């Protein structure tokens, strides 16, 4: 057998030993899946979204299954940053993978304050900023759906921490490239794409929304083609590393995201269905590299072949009037 392939990647100031990261909200506070495998083996772990104060979350039902998808309206329930740092973090010290906190707020100042609270804390390797939350100061539209407010959040977080800042985008926008550029300009070290898609489901028998919150966020295999497209768009738009996610269930899905240019990937919903999903992806990528004689996973990143895919189209390329689909 040959030497093990190099799997480490750099996601903007944070070097991780492999490109597989547990996604926020689908991996608990970090060690819940320890009975199944050692979480130290992952590239990094992003814990569930934290806010300044504890949040109760939404009433049930909070989740409903849809075709190949999961619609959730958890309501970002969490114990608050203080309890996390005081009670949970110490018990995560034995985990050898970097712990990344995912933070959210309802005002720009909430985000800045969260960044300050985290700044001094040992054991937190980076900050992922969830900007899919309603901006209460400006009518309740999510921060991440407007380039200006997205940039302002990014700016204030970057200003208040020396830790690497990952901004996590929402897909529910007209032009994700614009948002990505704004966030990059504001100083984010990397961008993760994508959070969940807005959706709802109706119970015909009761004539009620299936989620108590009515609207939820769609994740899982159903969204994979859309997430992949958005990652591709963001990779084209910015120079900072992009972390891809959305519907990744196995190493094969992960490779699709790496090929379009994601520097690393996150595993979300898959953890719920298959508690070993993330580690199986690490192993799958290792085997794939061995099989394909790829020495370094970075050879794969952005290696999508788009040129010469068909001869007859070359001429069309210039013609903007070509209908897309």
């Amino acid at each position, binding site marked *: 057998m040959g030497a093990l392939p190099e799997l480490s990647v750099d996601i903007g100031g944070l070097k991780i030993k492999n490109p597989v990261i547990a996604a926020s*909200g*689908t*991996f*608990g506070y970090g*060690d*819940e*899946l*320890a*009975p*199944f495998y050692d979480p130290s083996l992952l590239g990094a772990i992003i814990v*569930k979204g934290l806010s300044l104060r504890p949040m*109760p*979350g*939404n*009433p*049930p*039902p*909070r*989740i*409903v*299954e849809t*075709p*190949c*998808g*999961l619609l*959730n309206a*958890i309501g970002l*329930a969490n114990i608050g940053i203080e309890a996390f740092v005081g009670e949970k973090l110490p*018990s995560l010290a034995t985990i050898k993978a970097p712990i990344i906190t995912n933070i959210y707020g309802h005002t720009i100042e909430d985000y800045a304050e969260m960044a300050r609270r985290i700044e001094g804390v040992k054991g937190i390797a980076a900050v992922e900023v969830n900007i899919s939350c309603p901006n209460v100061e400006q009518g309740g539209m999510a921060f991440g759906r407007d380039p200006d407010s997205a940039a302002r959040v990014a700016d204030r977080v970057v200003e208040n921490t020396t830790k690497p800042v990952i901004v996590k985008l929402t897909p529910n926008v007209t032009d994700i490239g614009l948002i990505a550029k704004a966030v990059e300009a504001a100083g984010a070290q990397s961008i993760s794409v994508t959070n969940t898609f807005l959706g709802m489901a109706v119970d015909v028998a009761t004539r009620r929304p299936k989620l108590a919150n009515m609207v939820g966020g769609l994740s*899982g*295999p159903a969204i994979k083609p859309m997430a992949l497209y958005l990652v591709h768009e963001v990779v084209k738009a910015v120079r900072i590393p992009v972390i891809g996610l959305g519907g990744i*269930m196995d190493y094969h899905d992960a490779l699709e995201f790496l090929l379009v240019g994601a520097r690393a990937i996150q595993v979300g*919903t898959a*953890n*719920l*269905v*298959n*508690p*070993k999903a993330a580690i199986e992806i690490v192993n799958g990528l290792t085997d794939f590299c061995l099989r394909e004689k790829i020495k370094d996973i970075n050879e794969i990143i952005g290696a999508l072949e788009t040129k010469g895919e068909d001869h007859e189209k070359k001429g069309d390329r210039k013609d903007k009037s070509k209908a897309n689909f």
Partner: protein
Amino acid sequence: MDKSRYPMVEEVVSIGFNREIGKDTFLMGFPCVALTSRAKPGQFLMIQVDRQAKDPLLRRPFSIHGVLDSNRLMILYKVVGKGTALLSALREGDTISAIGPLGNGFTLPGPGERALLVAGGMGIAPLFFLTQVLTRAQNHSVKMFLGFPTSQDVVLIDQLKGLGVDLSLTTEDGSLGIKGLVTDLWDQTLSQESTQKPVTYACGPASMLKEIAQKAIARNLRCYVCLEGYMGCGLGICQGCAAKAAGSKDKPYYYVCQDGPVFSAEMIDWEVM
């Protein structure tokens, strides 16, 4: 995290039998020492028929229904949608993936204590296992109330009688056993047995649990309910399975998969159930 509290495993098991024992009601058994040796009444499994399939996406939760010969486990389930329909089509030798045992399980009654078991429909699934354990221990007085919509739905009477449990059967339409609701029968028994302080174990539809819990609280009786909840993971990582906690505690919601599925009646805010 105290890993020993969650000695759960994921196992691909080979189905021993999968029989329709009542209308749309199936009993499935499979050998799995790892699961069987750890299982306690009230705990459950998260089951997936096809590890590759993406639709249905989520695992489905099923109570552990009982053990056979210390290495085989059973589940009892009703076909209500696509996941259970897929399950019902499986034959001997087909495989499923099961994660478990999950959840806390029932707190057993103290020695000599009288236990009233109230099962509505598929609520019998975990209570059968509890009955197995209680009758084997032989130092409890156990009475079971079993309710179904109609005679067609009735299952497991012979097996329960075989365990030697004192059994009262109700059907809503009176087509078998006593006509009426299982909750009424339980209530009447409580009134008659006023000298004793029994502990109640209930599993069934939410409306039934609510009535029992509220009455037990009112009578100041110990009562454990086994709750359902729409589960994303069963593992405590998604926070999907929220149940509102009573009072304004630190914990506004319990998570059925981790804090339950068995709760002491007064823990839950029944107003919103």
